């Protein structure tokens, strides 16, 4: 007869095998990219998993590439991403807070409309956006920023769900203590929603940092490689012509590794704010 502890051990073993498999599947491409970025080659595509010869040449090369100004791309993307992160986070958190806490006419219909609008993929609007920005003469980084932050408010659903979990009586207590709605938001709402702010900030940084579709559409017209963002620039590197594509492949891979660095740092740095149970002690229990 199988004992309970044996059964448990067996099920644990299965779980670990499954998780290990998944972990390997996830991490393998990343390792491959990193290895390829250090691999010496002059023939184009890297076809071996383990490099024959290690080199830093790809990293040096990509910063000195005269045709593809990688340094500019990083700077452009960083500026856009940080600005987008700040503005989008403010917009998203404000909209979410208002929809969670205040009651006003058309609140319900608005929530429904926002939900339906959110079901359409963002890039559906790209042609319209292209012509609007063209009309405004904004087919540049400024226009791109506008695209990223313009719809930020609509992404309030997750944050609103979070605000909904903060007991309303805390707000009411603050109001009776003499706070205006704005003071309640600043002194109570914001400090309590640190995890949410971090989450929103991370997502609104990463979206422009890795976005390819909009940056491609909006920045391609200028034809000036110095105004590109990283994603669009790197794409150009391997795409323009067949011959170049293979020649720059190793540098392209090095570029991919470099853009992963800020995101990783951001995650590690902000993870400590990413805590649960911040409202512990407000309520009973």
């Amino acid at each position, binding site marked *: 007869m199988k004992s309970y502890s044996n059964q448990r051990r067996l099920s644990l073993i299965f779980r670990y095998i499954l998780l290990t498999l998944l972990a390997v599947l996830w991490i393998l491409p990343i390792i491959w990219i990193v290895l390829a970025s250090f691999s010496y080659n002059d023939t184009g595509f890297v076809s071996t998993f383990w490099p024959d010869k290690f080199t830093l040449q790809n990293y040096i090369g990509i910063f000195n590439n005269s045709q593809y100004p990688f340094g500019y791309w990083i700077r452009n993307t960083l500026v856009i991403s940080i600005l987008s992160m700040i503005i989008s986070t403010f917009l998203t958190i404000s909209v979410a807070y208002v929809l969670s806490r205040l009651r006003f006419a058309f609140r319900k219909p608005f929530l429904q409309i926002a939900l339906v609008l959110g079901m359409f993929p963002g890039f559906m609007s790209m042609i319209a956006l292209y012509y609007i920005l063209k009309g405004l003469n904004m087919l540049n980084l400024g226009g791109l920023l506008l695209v990223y932050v313009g719809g930020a408010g609509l992404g309030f659903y997750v944050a609103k769900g979070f605000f909904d979990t903060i007991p309303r009586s805390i707000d*009411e207590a*603050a109001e009776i*203590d003499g706070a205006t709605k704005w003071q309640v938001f600043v002194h109570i709402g914001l400090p309590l929603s640190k995890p949410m702010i971090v989450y929103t900030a991370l997502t609104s940084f990463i979206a422009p940092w890795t976005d390819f579709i909009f940056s491609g559409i909006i920045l391609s017209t200028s034809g000036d490689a110095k105004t590109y963002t990283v994603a669009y620039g790197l794409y150009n590197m391997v795409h323009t012509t067949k011959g170049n594509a293979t020649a720059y492949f190793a540098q392209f891979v090095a570029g991919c590794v470099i853009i992963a660095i800020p995101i990783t740092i951001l995650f590690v740095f902000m993870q400590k704010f990413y805590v649960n149970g911040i409202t512990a002690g*407000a309520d009973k229990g």
Partner: protein
Amino acid sequence: MVEVDLNHIYKKYEGNDKYSVNDFDLHIKPKEFIVFVGPSGCGKSTTLRMIAGLEDISKGTLEIDGKVMNDVAPKDRNIAMVFQNYALYPHMTIYDNMAFGLKLRHYKKEDIDKRVKNAAKILGLEDYLDKKPGALSGGQRQRVALGRAIVRDAPIFLMDEPLSNLDAKLRVSMRAEIAKLHQRLGTTSIYVTHDQTEAMTLADRVVVMSVGHVQQIGTPLEVYNEPVNQFVAGFIGSPQMNFFNVHYKDGRMSDGKGLNLEVPEGKAKMLEEQGYNDKDLVFGIRPEDIHSEEAFMETWPNDVVTSKVVVSELLGATIQLYQEVDGTEFVAIINSRDFHQPGDVVKMGFDINKGHFFDKDTTLRIHN
């Protein structure tokens, strides 16, 4: 100290056809301790929240110190409120929790410090001032909530079931704290509870409510001894009053089952004068007015019932005997010297003079 005037206040929530609070009319004197009591959903919390400004008033006017407050924001009503679930600010220390309201009102730093430290001393929270609410027990949190209210020296104190999340023992000691606090500060207080013991022990006047209507307003003794109707009689007192559907005729009442008792002359005269002879009535008697002493039964031999004990609950000094006589059930509180086991057959004397008669249709108490 201020007075609060609730003039025929009504509340209807959007989407409801019925009013949640009907014609609430009460004048609260300075320094008075008023308790709203009633079962869940009777509108007591809603009324309190209307006074606080957290709910709009649908009809009627609320005056604080003679000024109409219907359209004044909560922050400008100068009230303090304690919530059922404490509603502390979890990211702030206990000190900051109490100081928050003062900071918003731009009190001087030294003044804030003095007030917070003083409140902490009164409530025994001095050792916890730099802790966060999460590190405190339920009773301590509730004391912080009280402290947050008293530092402001607000002339009106609102409390919404402040003790209902505490365990029984803590509830009793916090109840005493609140009573002491009121004696000390003399703040006009309005307290909401569903616990009639809290209502009886704390209140200067009790407002008994049921399904959105005020049933009775009076001192604890008044609502206990002279309930206006069957609801108040049943709600105040624990275990609740025994009710019997009886038929009264010529000095005797019977419920057609095991109960057939003589009604003493005074009560009988009153009933007959008001035309209740040969009529169906509701007779109510509190458990403590049913006696097991021989002396009582010898005095009123015609009001003695022979019954069977169903459940016997020993509480220490007293014992609650749930009994049955031919299908009629009742409970008596007697001295625990007269201990009985379930199944015992006992004799019980009813003190009809202490009992109440209620009109069967209107449920109003019949009295002179």
